[in-house]
């Protein structure tokens, strides 16, 4: 079957860096758009110098963190402070459908590439701007990363234990929230442009997107005055509901018991020790009230079993349960294998490397791997020749002048 590209012939000139921007443009690239990342070799983006690296050895082209968000893209290094570099970028923009960028507000304008200038170069351009806190307002130029936003947008406050410090939900969490909103609006804008020939400017604030995933918590404050707090693994409608230690080193399984029927199944699965018959555990309210004690008793059983065994026994009896997966578990997860979640492609420095694919399968137009993430400046010559029609001599002249810096 010939692979059908949704975004056949669509060109994105991508100045974005780190998370939200590149994740958004990766989606377009995975569905067939021509995405050209413009980077600076003298000031490489932060993910190129972020671990993990191939074989643990740092290097500009060895970061997995950079690799995973940049599949199917061309990579170009351009010194935007060099007049001919800027000129080269403008020539590409003149052929582009979308310009993507994720600088703090004002940086693009400094290059003379603000939205109004871009429109002069390409009247129907769509400018996709994403940053920490939006293109307007007193904080629009404040530098930061998603790791900071985890604090600002409420996630750190809402992760961990009420009697302990707030906890960081691992990484720059909001970088994983915002791209979906960006993609939805960007594709809607492309559909609008197809019909009308009109471009526009999209403004995605990572902070605002982050709040959207906590919106009911915010309404709870506005309406009920409640300041929600982190609560470990507590659930208002289930008990037991926690991660329980299992046999092995730092192995855990989650079990979630919502209904009386699930409670009965749960008790059967663990062999019905005498405490399961105690009256205090016979109702949901009772189980909630004595949840702490219940957790201890549940764990007495789980520690004697492997996490996989706990989960398969629970699932077989209709109780929601799952292994708390480590990266090692993810690597061998048969479901992810079945879904072709990882795309293995050969990368010059990383060797055969498992990239991540897309989280959905489109029956007619599935996303497919075509190209590994680019090394710095890997496609300078290719882009100049294929998309700008430069001759070898013209390219060499730019090279000598240090334009590809």
């Amino acid at each position: 079957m010939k692979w059908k590209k949704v975004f056949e012939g669509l060109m994105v000139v991508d100045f974005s860096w780190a998370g939200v921007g590149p994740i958004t443009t990766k989606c377009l690239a995975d569905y067939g758009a021509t995405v050209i990342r413009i980077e600076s070799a003298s000031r490489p983006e932060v993910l190129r110098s972020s671990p993990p690296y191939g074989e643990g050895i740092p290097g500009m082209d060895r970061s997995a963190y950079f690799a995973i968000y940049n599949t199917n893209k061309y990579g170009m290094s351009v010194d935007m402070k060099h007049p001919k570099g800027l000129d080269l970028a403008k020539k590409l923009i003149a052929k582009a459908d979308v310009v993507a960028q994720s600088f703090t507000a004002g940086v693009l304008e400094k290059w003379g590439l603000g939205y109004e200038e871009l429109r002069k170069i390409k009247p129907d351009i769509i400018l996709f701007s994403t940053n920490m806190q939006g293109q307007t307002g007193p904080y629009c130029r404040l530098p930061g990363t998603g790791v900071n936003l985890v604090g600002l947008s409420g996630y750190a406050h809402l992760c961990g234990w009420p009697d302990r410090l707030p906890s960081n939900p691992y990484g720059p969490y909001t970088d994983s929230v915002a791209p979906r909103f960006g993609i939805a609006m960007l594709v809607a804008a492309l559909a609008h442009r197809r019909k009308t020939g009109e471009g526009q400017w999209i403004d995605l604030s990572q902070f605002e997107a982050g709040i959207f995933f906590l919106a009911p918590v915010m309404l709870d404050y506005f309406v009920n005055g409640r300041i929600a707090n982190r609560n470990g693994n507590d659930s208002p409608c289930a008990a037991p509901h926690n991660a329980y230690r299992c046999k092995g080193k730092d192995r855990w399984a989650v079990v979630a018991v919502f209904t009386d029927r699930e409670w009965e199944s749960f008790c059967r699965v663990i062999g019905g020790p005498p405490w399961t018959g105690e009256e205090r555990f016979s109702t949901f309210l009772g189980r909630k009230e004595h949840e702490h004690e219940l957790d201890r008793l549940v764990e007495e059983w789980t520690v004697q079993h492997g996490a996989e065994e706990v989960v398969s026994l629970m699932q077989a009896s209709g109780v929601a349960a799952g292994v708390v997966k480590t990266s090692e578990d993810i690597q061998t997860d048969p479901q992810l294998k079945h879904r072709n979640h990882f795309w293995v492609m050969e990368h010059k420095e990383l060797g055969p490397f498992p990239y991540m694919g897309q989280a959905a399968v489109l029956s007619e137009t599935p996303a497919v791997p075509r190209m590994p993430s680019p090394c710095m400046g890997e496609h300078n010559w290719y882009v100049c020749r294929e998309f700008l029609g430069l001759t070898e001599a013209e390219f060499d002249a730019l090279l000598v002048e240090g334009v590809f810096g």
Partner: protein
Amino acid sequence: MGHAPLEGFRALDLTDERGFLCGRILADLGVDVIKVEPPGGDSSRRIGPFFRDLPEPEKSLFWFVYNANKRGITLRMESADGREIFENLLRGSHFVLESFPPGYLDSIGLGYEELSRVNPTVILTSITPFGQTGPHSRHKTSDIVEMAACGLMVLCGDPDRPPVRISFPQACLHGAAEAAAQTMIAHYYREISGLGQWVDVSIQQAAMLSTFNSFWFWELEGVNLKRAGAWRTGLTSGVLQRQIWPCKDGYVNMPIYGGLLGTRTNRLLVEWMEREGMADDFVRAIDWENLDMGRLSQEIWNQIEERMERFFMTHTKEELYLQALKMNIMIYPVSTPKDIAENEQLEHRQFWMEMEHPELGVTLPFPGPVVRASLTPMAVKRRAPLIGEHNEEVYTELGFSRQDLVLLKETGVI
């Protein structure tokens, strides 16, 4: 200001809480989203928190937020009449959104094959924990199971306690938002080709985006990262770096970055400490520009952190954030919901709009358009529907008489 970009399109939203946000995003983009509930109302109306803590089906704040901007009808699709009505609706629709267990729609004769027979260009978007097929596709799950399966949970929480999920359920929101993005891609393809298709979303895979680079530490270095609470994991091997710091009235967030990203913040912070007499020779002597964060010993880290913590404790989170803005450095507050409600930037951006709920006699602050566009902005116009609120409107549009509606109601179809 123009119109929302997808005006003139219609979606039938059959989802439960796993998919609400998908329809909400499409609705904000201008799609006429009709939320289809079973007669009596969707069971997801039982999800809290509730308006004034009243646990009633018309007072779920979760429902308010993620079903805003939709119309609502009731319909028993499993009955013969219900099915016929559904097919009628389907003929005039462009999207069907659903989050039933895999195979359910097929079992009531409304699988993708059948839907596309009735409406050849329809896009069916299915949101399930693990996707439509595969060894785990029938697993019973809930938010905590999905967060465990995506690999985020093992990385969250204090090392001496069990792994934790984020305290407000997140997995289904990842799945639903991802579904909206992927549905738009299918829509764009339909605009070009005239073809519909089936969009099969996995919540597990969608939520995996929140685990960032963690998997590749195992893949490339054989390391399973450990949860570290308020400290950072995954940047350097073995050394604990603080990320969340106590201050006078709460907490602030400041990972100490090395290199280009962090030098400016670190240097200016020390200068600020100096101005307030809280810098000593040790911290003055640090050459931030050339400091290799990856090679610092835990002991040195601890010494740096000790001094910074002492300084943060002399200021409130607001003082620290305001000064950070002035100096353009990366110190951020750990916001509570109250702090977010009072955030100056959101106020300036008019992020909180007002949503009237006339039945409750109130106007609620509501999160505004989540992404802005100069020409085709999102439009949030209508509060979430009451049970069967638009039955008459929608079914009359289909050509049913008022008498038909009475009969259908009496037989429990609507």
